[in-house]
């Protein structure tokens, strides 16, 4: 066993040497990208003949998943070879949607049918009646190709992105308003350099994105970890301090922390003066900047227009524009041209004064001394990071929650600083390109779309009892607009791309759409037999991720600049998403357009038309590699290639901060977002409500103050085996790496209700009921009941488990976040009983 020496105790738990040695002795290992969740870990896949037998974390992925993968990633071959995978296209031959009555057809036939449906819409002059519903996995793999090539070639701007509309919308905007894109892969906590990490709203131990777990996990012990979670999750079990908090009230704790930090003078004064709009002089009453001027700025990618704002310069004792002042005052108060002015810093300090730790304790259940202690520790540990957020939108106040998190990060001088919250490679690119405000993520509908118009009509009840029409930012991405459209507009065509909306969060809304006569056709381009197929008219299977190429793409979550790509491990005669669309557009005579657009997205305008039609993706990757300065042979062997190390990303973050290149109106970090003020004026007539107050503001979750003594607040989260829609059919995930007891209930509450551990219980909201086995535990706040989101199905699945536990029936598509229209996942009151 001499070769054991190869592994030194100093190495990470992976070895490039080992991999290459194994290759030398004939092991066939192909680099790929894991698509068992949205996090796109870099993997190496071992093949035996035409079978993928093992998936490994790619040891070359030094700054990504570091050679590790999670249980879902490991179980990939069981998805590929799953008995419930559909290999042939299906066309409905009768019956209603919801009945299994299909004929297996060829790809050719199914594609012709799809083209026919679209052509009809075009001929009727109503291409916008084609609505794309993009699932989690497809959004992660093909986000830009779908929104920038497929949708525009279809001539529709109605694209519902399920991750944006159900998971991340509110945090994307909340961070976005301060100038950084809040999309997962683009904004990250810098675990490797931090001294303190404040985690909330997320279970890094059971959550998707093992790349982040790897970074956070390897560094455990180097930083102090505080986990605020109503449930003692896997990640909370690693915390120095677990802070059990009532569901949806973490906002109160953050507001009190902000108050403590400002009152105790623990903020980062220099950072606030130099890099933020804390010194901006504003009208005391309207919060409007008192004076601004247009300026031209230039970053490495773009020249752009911004504004500069007036400050009081303590150095020259005069009013100056911020970029000209030496020492902008944080605390100036006085008169400017006859108007009473103050600074944003003063406004914020006053604004949060009422949010004392004692006040927050009453709401959240977190002891006031603990709140103060965490606030002080967070502020004085330099650097300190706060969770930028994951599947965030669970409660009605989540927009303000993430505004508060961003504010905490800013006032302590930790945004865009090493060890704080930083932009990844993708985030840096989006900010420098000044991508559409405020998200710098997938583009907002370019023109007001059909969905946008209907979203605007959604009536939302606000915390002060008034009702508003449409969220502050209707952006045409949510399905509440679609449900409304389907009541009034005839002839809609819904195309689902890679997801299971009939059974994930869209759930009920999807069923409603499927039974509407106004929905002419539902087309599903997917992978597995699932409830969405059941409710569709045409189904086309795409390749599984181990059966196809993945075009060259940037590395998510990474401070180092580089690219990754995937190569097919096995050959199964299937078609990939991009190719299916090439064939559809070929029939529609729009191939030229599609390939031009896709060429633009993938490789700065290279010609990929023939490659697309022939399915020659290797050639496309070659072209992409050339454009991006990547050696093709290297990427083919390693799967991931770095052009820089992490110091590049840290340096770019520093430059963006110091030069004021953020994606805000002023280019500086904005505590009081100017764009937000403008939006409120434009869309809400300047009326400020707590829900969209531009400074972090308390908004109670919907359940607050309405909870009966026999009731609970619904809570959900990530489990270690949760792979969006692909957990249940996967025998390893659903039966081996699973915890049997699913519905968490506090021990005291359980005994009051006579519920035993492991007993079957029923959980009912006003919208519906589910059933599953109880886990009676001390590890959850008494007010909450936890239900995992990834179970329940209608269709027959061979290895399916917990059929009667479809989380989505507890929800209502009507409940949305009043700012972004993102759907609420868990702000529901439920009752529990033994059955």
């Amino acid at each position: 066993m001499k070769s054991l020496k190869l592994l030194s105790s100093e190495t990470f738990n992976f070895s490039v040497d080992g991999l290459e040695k194994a290759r030398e002795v004939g092991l066939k290992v192909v680099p790929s990208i894991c698509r068992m969740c949205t996090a796109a870990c870099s993997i190496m896949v071992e093949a035996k003949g035409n079978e993928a037998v093992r998936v490994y974390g790619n040891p070359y992925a030094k700054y990504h998943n570091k050679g590790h993968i999670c249980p879902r990633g490991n179980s990939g071959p069981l998805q590929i070879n799953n008995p419930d995978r559909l290999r042939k296209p299906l066309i409905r031959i009768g019956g209603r949607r919801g009945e299994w009555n299909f004929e297996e057809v060829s790809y050719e036939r199914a594609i012709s049918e799809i083209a026919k449906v679209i052509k009809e819409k075009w001929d009727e002059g109503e291409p916008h009646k084609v609505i794309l519903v993009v699932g989690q996995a497809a959004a992660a793999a093909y986000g830009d190709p779908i929104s920038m090539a497929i949708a525009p070639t279809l001539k529709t701007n109605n694209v519902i992105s399920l991750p944006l509309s159900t998971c991340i919308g509110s945090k994307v905007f909340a961070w976005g308003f301060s100038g950084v894109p809040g999309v997962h892969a683009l904004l990250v906590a810098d675990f490797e350099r931090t001294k303190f990490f404040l985690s909330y709203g997320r279970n890094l131990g059971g959550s998707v994105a093992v790349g982040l777990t790897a970074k956070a996990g390897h560094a455990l012990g180097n930083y102090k970890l505080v986990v605020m979670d109503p449930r003692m999750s896997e990640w909370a079990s690693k915390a120095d301090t677990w802070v059990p908090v009532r569901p949806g009230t973490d906002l109160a704790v953050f507001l009190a922390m902000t108050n403590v930090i400002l009152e105790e003078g623990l903020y980062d004064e220099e950072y606030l003066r130099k890099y933020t709009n804390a010194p901006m002089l504003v009208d005391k009453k309207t919060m409007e900047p008192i004076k601004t001027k247009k300026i031209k700025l230039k970053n490495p990618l773009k020249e752009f227009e911004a504004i500069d704002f007036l400050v009081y310069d303590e150095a020259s004792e005069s009013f100056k524009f911020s970029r000209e002042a030496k020492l902008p005052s944080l605390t100036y108060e006085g008169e400017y041209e006859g108007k009473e002015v103050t600074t944003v810093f003063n406004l914020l300090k006053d604004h949060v004064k009422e949010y004392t730790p004692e006040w927050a304790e009453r709401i959240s259940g977190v002891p006031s001394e603990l709140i103060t202690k965490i606030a002080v520790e967070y502020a004085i540990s330099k650097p300190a990071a706060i969770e930028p957020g994951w599947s965030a939108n669970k409660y009605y106040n989540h927009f303000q929650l993430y505004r508060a998190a961003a504010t905490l990060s800013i006032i302590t001088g930790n945004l865009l600083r090493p060890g704080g919250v930083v932009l990844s490679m993708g985030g840096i690119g989006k900010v420098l390109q000044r991508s559409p405000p405020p998200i710098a993520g997938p583009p907002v509908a370019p023109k007001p779309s059909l969905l946008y118009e209907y979203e605007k009509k959604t009536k939302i009840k606000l915390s002060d009892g008034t009702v508003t029409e449409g969220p502050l930012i209707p952006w045409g991405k949510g399905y509440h607009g679609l449900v409304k459209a389907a009541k009034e507009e005839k002839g809609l065509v819904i195309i689902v791309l890679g997801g299971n909306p009939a059974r994930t969060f869209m759930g009920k809304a999807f069923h409603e759409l499927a039974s509407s006569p106004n929905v002419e056709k539902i087309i599903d381009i997917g992978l597995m037999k699932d409830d969405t197929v059941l409710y569709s008219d045409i189904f086309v299977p795409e390749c599984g991720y181990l059966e196809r190429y993945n075009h060259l793409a940037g590395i998510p979550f990474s401070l180092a600049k580089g690219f990754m790509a995937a190569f097919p491990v096995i050959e199964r005669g299937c078609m990939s998403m991009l190719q299916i669309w090439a064939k559809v557009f070929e029939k529609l005579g729009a191939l030229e357009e599609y390939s031009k657009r896709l060429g633009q997205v993938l490789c700065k305008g290279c010609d990929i038309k023939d490659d697309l039609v022939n399915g020659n993706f290797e050639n496309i990757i070659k072209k992409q590699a050339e454009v991006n300065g990547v050696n093709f042979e290297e990427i083919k062997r390693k799967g991931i290639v770095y052009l820089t190390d992490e110091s590049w990303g840290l340096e770019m973050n520093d430059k963006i901060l110091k030069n004021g290149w953020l994606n805000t109106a002023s280019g500086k970090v904005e505590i009081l977002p100017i764009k937000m003020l403008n939006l409120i004026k434009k869309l809400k007539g300047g009326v400020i409500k707590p829900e969209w107050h531009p400074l972090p503001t308390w908004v109670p979750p919907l359940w607050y103050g309405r909870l009966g003594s026999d009731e609970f607040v619904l809570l959900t989260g990530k489990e270690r085996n949760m792979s969006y829609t692909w957990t249940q059919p996967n025998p390893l995930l659903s039966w081996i790496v699973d915890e049997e007891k699913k519905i968490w209930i506090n021990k005291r509450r359980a005994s009051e209700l006579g519920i035993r551990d492991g007993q079957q219980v029923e959980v009912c909201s006003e919208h519906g009921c589910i059933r599953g086995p109880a886990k009676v535990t001390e590890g959850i706040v008494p007010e909450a009941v936890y239900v995992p989101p990834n179970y329940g199905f209608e269709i027959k699945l061979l290895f399916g488990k917990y059929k009667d536990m479809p989380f989505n029936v507890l929800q209502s598509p009507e409940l949305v976040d009043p700012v972004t229209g993102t759907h609420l996942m868990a702000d529901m009151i439920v009752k529990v009983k033994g059955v």
Partner: protein
Amino acid sequence: MKPAMIIDLNKCVGCGACVAACVMENQYKEGKPPEPGIIASLLSRLVGLPIYKETPLKEAIKRVERGEDPKEVLGKLFMTRTLVVREESGEYPNVKVKFWHKICHHCDDAPCAHVCPTGATYVTKEGIVMVNKSKCIVCGACITACPYAARSIDVYNRAVDKCTLCEHRIKKGLLPACVETCPTGARTFGDLEDPKFKAKVSKACNENERVFFIE
């Protein structure tokens, strides 16, 4: 060369990647099951014990389609040489959670090897506790003797199955599958003759084994 594994419970988040990797490496990847040995064939003929001929996945599909309980079928076919189980203690809100790991500790003085009547269980010169499946008569003595509940039944071979420290991988200079995949670095692997690795072990709770737990 003294191979050993350290499991740092302070780092383990209970994600179960190790469990999945082990199953995929040691059950799934194997693919075609072995031909039933003489003893297995004999037993199956005499007492009607089932013989499993297909790969674990195919076998599972066949059986579950026939109406057998997926939990039981999969539990048999995908043997878990390692498992990670959540253990809670304390009262709300002062709760502690630890993850208990089922895994062979590769004890220096292995009780399972002592009780094995046929010599099927043996200890290699590097200190890895192994089972020679062709000698195993499934008497179950080792299963009872193991203080860590680390042994299970291999229905294919009609023998006892257990963690091999991925001997087949470490021989090639690869890490054990579970160690390689572990996202947090809770599971590490090395050579006790390497002073740096040895130094880490000094924090562990039981030094008379080859799988060390740091708590």
